[in-house]
């Protein structure tokens, strides 16, 4: 169990998918203006990513194998697109409020690099099924964590006297950079 927790911890903090691995930045920048939206997006992504990690492991292990490795990307993305669409329909039905908030962004999960990146990293690291799931979940939780924290910072910055040319995305980018700098403090914690 300990090594699974370590994978989880490592994926959330040490190798944070957004700030260290630099994946999933578009939703990170796009959906972090409001705290609620960030939380919703994080939840949706966590759900999708965990499922996608498991599903892609199974596909890679049992359907593709080494001969069909050239179908990895193709099959993964198709499955992910399917899961996303499924999630979208479920959210639209079950939580119109969340759907309202995530509206335009849910489909964007498909084009969230992290969602394809993590399954690919799983293959690269030769994770087993459980490891894949934990890594996927860790990545997604890390994504959610930094996005929520980032949203908090951005909400506070609304009132800051930011120079005109840095207002909006530029200062957000600086903030992401300084967050990334801070997260370097975790380096070495999981070897």
């Amino acid at each position: 169990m300990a090594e699974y927790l370590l994978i989880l911890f490592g994926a959330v903090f040490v190798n944070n998918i957004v700030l260290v691995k630099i994946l999933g930045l578009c939703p990170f920048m796009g959906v972090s203006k409001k705290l609620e939206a960030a939380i919703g997006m994080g939840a949706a992504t966590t759900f999708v990513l965990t499922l996608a990690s498991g599903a892609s492991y199974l596909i890679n292990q049992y359907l593709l194998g080494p001969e069909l490795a050239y179908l990895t990307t193709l099959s993964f993305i198709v499955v992910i697109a399917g899961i996303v669409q499924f999630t979208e329909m479920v959210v639209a039905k079950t939580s119109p409020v969340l759907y309202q908030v995530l509206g335009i962004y849910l489909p964007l999960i498909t084009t969230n690099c992290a969602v394809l990146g993590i399954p690919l990293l799983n293959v690269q690291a030769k994770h087993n099924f459980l490891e894949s799931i934990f890594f996927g979940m860790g990545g997604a939780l890390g994504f959610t964590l930094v996005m929520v924290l980032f949203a908090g910072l951005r909400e506070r910055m609304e009132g800051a006297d930011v120079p005109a040319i840095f207002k909006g995305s530029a200062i957000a980018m600086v903030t992401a950079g300084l967050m990334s700098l801070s997260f370097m403090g975790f380096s070495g914690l999981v070897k």
Partner: protein
Amino acid sequence: MLSALLVMAAIAIVLGAVLGFAAIKFHVEGNPLVDKIDAILPQTQCGQCGYPGCKPYATAIAAGEADINRCPPGGEEGIRKLADLLGVEFKPFGGDTLPKPKSVAFIDENLCIGCTLCIQACPVDAIAGAAKQMHTIIASECTGCELCVAPCPVNCISMVVIEEKITTWKWKYPVYALTPVK
């Protein structure tokens, strides 16, 4: 090659089935976004946005056809709220659309000929009067949209800026210039 085709076919079929099922099971309709946008618009129905009223403008925004900075009566605050709702960047007013002081219409009663044209133009029924009689504007209902001004054949309607009274007076934003000391 064959195995590749089979694998992809299998994936596609399974997904198709799941999605097809979900599409039926989780079907939703309606677009609550329009109503949310409409709730933010000031309901002046003035058409300055280029649409024949607030609701059509809201529909256009929801469909992604219109910018959020077209409604002068809504002011910057309105744009800001729209930007928040839609998760887009705030945009200042462009070019010809600028907010102006709140006013109400005023009918010069000496000139009014009672043609009822203004009544037909007013989107909120803020004008009282019958045919061939002098008309008056119910100031508390008037949204200041100015739509009645143009139709009047005798130009008897004018817009009066609402003056600040003690009861409507607002505390101002404190501006303190930090004087540069050279």
